[in-house]
């Protein structure tokens, strides 16, 4: 899942450019490595909040980062250890605050309007055509399996492609990431959600 680094420059929660720069320096003296670590922490924190069943994991992640950045002067002077674990500690506090505020668990619904369903399907078709032929072949073979023989068909597909089943899973995952981003962009162009 790609992180949107532009949200790190939000000012509505008080994260200034200076604070952001300090945060990067705390993560790593090298700015490029620091930026990479920043993206990693965003993605993983979002997954942590998803694992807790939160409906807005990205917002909670941003809040976590903002709070860490706001305390950085104090943290940087006294904290010793893996920065990611510090983020985790703050995230747990934020989750507790979130869970106290949430009264009723929301209803899960992935139903969308029929027109939007059709548009997404069209976008999928368009995005599949943009894949390399090998990737297109792989992902369609990966999903073209009988329900009861899924594992067997993956082994067969992996053998056919000359890769391990785990490597096949990894490639399929990456292709789906690409397709997901492509479909989102396609829907934005069409004025969809």
């Amino acid at each position, binding site marked *: *899942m790609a992180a949107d680094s532009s949200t790190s420059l939000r000012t509505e929660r008080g994260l200034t450019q200076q604070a952001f720069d300090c945060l990067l320096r705390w993560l790593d003296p090298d700015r490029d490595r620091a930026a990479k670590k920043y993206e*990693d*922490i965003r993605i*993983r*924190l*979002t*997954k*942590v*909040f*998803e*694992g807790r*069943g*939160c*409906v*807005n*994991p*990205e917002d909670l992640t941003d809040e976590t980062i903002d709070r860490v950045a706001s305390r950085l002067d104090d943290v940087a002077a006294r904290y010793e250890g*893996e920065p*990611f*674990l510090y*983020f*985790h500690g703050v995230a*747990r506090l934020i989750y507790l605050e979130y869970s106290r505020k949430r009264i009723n*668990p*929301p209803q*899960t619904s*992935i139903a*969308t309007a029929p027109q939007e369903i*059709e548009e*997404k*399907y*069209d976008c*999928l*078709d368009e995005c*599949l*055509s943009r894949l390399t*032929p090998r990737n*297109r*072949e792989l*992902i*369609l*073979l*990966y*999903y*073209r399996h009988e*329900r009861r023989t*899924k594992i067997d068909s993956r082994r067969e597909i992996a053998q056919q492609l000359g890769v391990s089943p*785990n490597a096949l*899973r*990894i490639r*399929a*995952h990456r292709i*789906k990431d690409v*397709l*997901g981003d492509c*479909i*989102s962009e396609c829907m934005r162009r069409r004025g969809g959600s």
Partner: protein
Amino acid sequence: MTDEVILRAYLLGDLAEDEHVRQEERLLTDKDYFERLLLVEDDLMDEYVSGLLAPAEREKVEKRFLLSPSRQAKIELAANLQRYASELPTAEPALRARRFLPVRASLVQRSPRASALLVWAAFLVVAVGVVVVVQLMMLTRRLDSLEGDKQAAARSATELSDKLGAQAARSDELARKLEQETERRTQLEEETANLKRLLSQPPGSNQSGLLALSLSPGRLRDGGPTRVIEISPAVRVLVLQLSIGANRYRSYRAVLRNDEGVVILAANNLRVAATSYQNYQDGKKIELRVPARLLRPGDYTILLSPANSQERTGTYYFTAKRQK
């Protein structure tokens, strides 16, 4: 428990709190472990979409796992991929479709504008193809017809050429025969005139001994029958009348040679014979009188030329024979 089992339990919320926290810490600090979580998450979503989850797991997915919008989007994608792949006939045709039909056929059903464009495009392609094929067939037929005409024309040309050649050969033959007949007629007329002269002389009188005959120029000895002159013992002088056509000179010179090139007789200052009816009929002539005793049996040539010029007016050939 294996890592995948633990991660699956983590995703479904089946771990105790302290274990859940430990998993979170490991995910935040262990990159490989985190990526393995993403794969287990994918598998869980695929199983949910395929309907392979047990009811209890399905409930946990719907109540906890799918609360985030990003996971909902991933579930949608997995479901659409499964539907897309299942709508392809077979795996092999999917590859063929990829190669030859980059746009899914079902796109036609789902996008009216695109379907209309595709239909029109296909119609145009077919229409153009038909027109091209028909034109090619017509051109091929025309070409065959022209080829046939060309061959017929060539045959006609060959036939005409053969006919013309035959006509030309026939014309030459006729011209040669005409010339021979004319020559023969002249000979007969001369013989008739000589006989008349002989008959008109009284018996016992001294015959003049003249034998007159005409010669035409250009009669090569080898090109056809040479004029044969039979000289009887009574003939003492041959009067050779040499046809010269249009007379351009006042006088001529004639040289008589035998077949060895020896000059037998040379005569100068020969003039055109006096106009007479006979001369008028046969054209202008030069008379050359040759004593018969000079002519032994054999072939002879007369070269006629203007008196003061090297120009040759004509060459005359004859063969002399002696009658006994």
